[in-house]
């Protein structure tokens, strides 16, 4: 196990290197520079700006300079926000987005797994259709839609929850629900499918035949294996939650990193694009690794073996 993890971390280095390098050059190919504005700027001013941010150097020099600094943890100054460094902005934005992502995942798992498991117990009956239909609404309602809708209902009509911001726990309910709901639908579908697969297998029947209660069968045996597809999905889902938090952060006026990530691309804030991209690739590598490790844990036969031994 440890060897496996170390190997995966070693493999992450070339991934990061390729991502950083590709991004570094791609952003420079994209038309429009960080200092282009609607009003014409004199050649002298443009020159001064480029000199200030090292952009007057040949591209390969810029690249090696950047890599040298990045390895030491210095992601450079933001081009859009003159007084800020990328490292500093990441430090303030990341914890917020991370918190949002975690709550969203909790919502997604809570709603998704519940709906999926309930539905799988009695396929093709009302007990299947109702929770599945409910959870699927999450997909039809993308965050741009669900966010404002939730705010209208809970924030403006009932006045139960604040319409924007990220301070108290009341502030955190609607945004995390908004961000999580799309994933809830996926999880519901995947867990229903996985559960059906497992519940139809012989070892479950064996377990039932041995007189285990239905609850024990579902919770002790079926769920671990049945949630396999969900577990493969969680890795990319968490990464997606974090990098896809832009809409939710914008709708709820939250000071997270998702906004920087998207706005930096439109602003051609080269260093900020690179910084956030590197950050997200680290997280993708990490969460995919985590989900692979969990896949081992969830292997149904492994579980069956141990429980048989216990009896």
């Amino acid at each position, binding site marked *: 196990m440890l060897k*496996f993890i170390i190997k995966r971390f070693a493999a992450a280095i070339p991934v990061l290197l390729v991502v950083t390098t590709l991004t570094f050059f791609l952003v420079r190919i994209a038309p429009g520079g960080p200092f282009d504005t609607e009003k014409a700027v004199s050649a002298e001013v443009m020159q001064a700006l480029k000199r200030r941010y090292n952009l007057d150097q040949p591209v390969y020099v810029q690249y090696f300079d950047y890599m040298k600094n990045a390895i030491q943890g210095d992601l450079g100054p933001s081009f859009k926000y003159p007084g800020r460094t990328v490292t500093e902005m990441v430090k303030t934005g990341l914890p917020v987005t991370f918190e949002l992502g975690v709550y969203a995942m909790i919502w997604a798992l809570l709603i998704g797994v519940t709906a999926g498991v309930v539905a799988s117990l009695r*396929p093709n009956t009302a007990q299947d259709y109702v929770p599945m239909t409910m959870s*699927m609404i999450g997909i039809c309602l993308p965050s741009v839609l669900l966010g404002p809708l939730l705010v209208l209902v809970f924030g403006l009509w009932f006045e139960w929850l604040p319409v924007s911001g990220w301070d108290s726990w009341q502030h955190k309910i609607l945004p995390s629900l908004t961000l999580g709901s799309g994933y809830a639908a996926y999880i519901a579908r995947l867990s229903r499918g996985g559960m059906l697969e497992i519940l139809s*297998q012989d070892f479950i029947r064996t377990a039932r035949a041995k007189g285990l209660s239905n609850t024990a069968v579902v919770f002790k045996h079926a769920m671990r294996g049945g949630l396999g*597809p969900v577990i*493969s999905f969680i890795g990319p889902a968490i990464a997606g939650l974090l990098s896809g938090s832009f809409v939710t952060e914008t709708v709820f006026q939250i000071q997270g990193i998702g906004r920087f990530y*998207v706005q930096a691309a439109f602003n051609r804030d080269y260093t900020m*694009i690179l910084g956030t991209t590197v950050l997200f690739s680290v997280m993708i590598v990490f969460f995919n690794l985590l989900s692979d490790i969990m896949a081992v844990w969830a292997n149904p036969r492994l579980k*069956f*073996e141990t429980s048989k031994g216990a009896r």
Partner: protein
Amino acid sequence: MSAATETVKSAPGSDELSRAQSGMDVEQGTSLWTDAWIRLKRNRMALAGGIFLVSLTLMALVTPWIAPYTYEGQDLQLGASAPSAAHWLGTDTLGRDLLTRIMYGSRISLMVGFLATAVALLIGVLYGTISGFLGGRADMLMMRIVDTLYALPFIIFVILLMVIFGRNLLLLFMAIGAVEWPTMARIVRGQVLNLRRQEFVEAAIAMGLSNRKIILRHLIPNVLGPIIVYTTLTIPSVMLLEAFLSFLGLGVQPPMSSWGLLISAGAESMEEYPWLLIFPGLVLSLTLFSLNFLGDGLRDALDPKASKD
């Protein structure tokens, strides 16, 4: 072997027998498909979903001949009006008939939904199966390529595509396929890793079947369940992604529209002109539900044991 296969190494099979059986079933072909069809027909929700999707597709095909108005004709003086006898579903803020725009939009959305998903499916399933089947170094390398694709900044990628190729529907499929396939690949790979060490696969290897045959005949049929489920979910999310890309300038060019674009336009004014959101949203939801019921039906129908319980 090396690292990645470790995920199953410690799991000596015990329900392999049942797995092997289902593998054999798939192998036997025709009777399975006939059985599946019979089972599918018995599932009323699935059937209803299927019928809805077929009629929707037919309507999309004949839209240019049956649409009540043109999709671009404006009536600025009328502006956004609620459903009426003249405009059954109302008009948008430029006074264009919403029903007509939804009908034309379905052509774009269905095409994008199905084609882009097909692209993602094809690449994702093949890639995931091969990666999981080969295991070891090859799997490691292939999965790290997937990680890299996940990590690249999507918007920059879209902007570059747009600048290099201009506005093009084909590009839209490519861009969407490129975004959607890695997740599919990861899910499929996870399943294949589990299957790979099982007896029926090892038996197939021992029998000297070629890798190609093992993948196509034994592995892919056995991961169909999660694939179908994930596909039915990918189609609607692809339709919504299309709206985002079109808005950025990569896909559909106004005044032409799509469901996704109609929904995001409707979301802007959901309090003032709710019908602009409700009707396109309704069509998309119905499509999604139909897809899911059909998908579930298919999954159950293709799994011989599910119906025995």
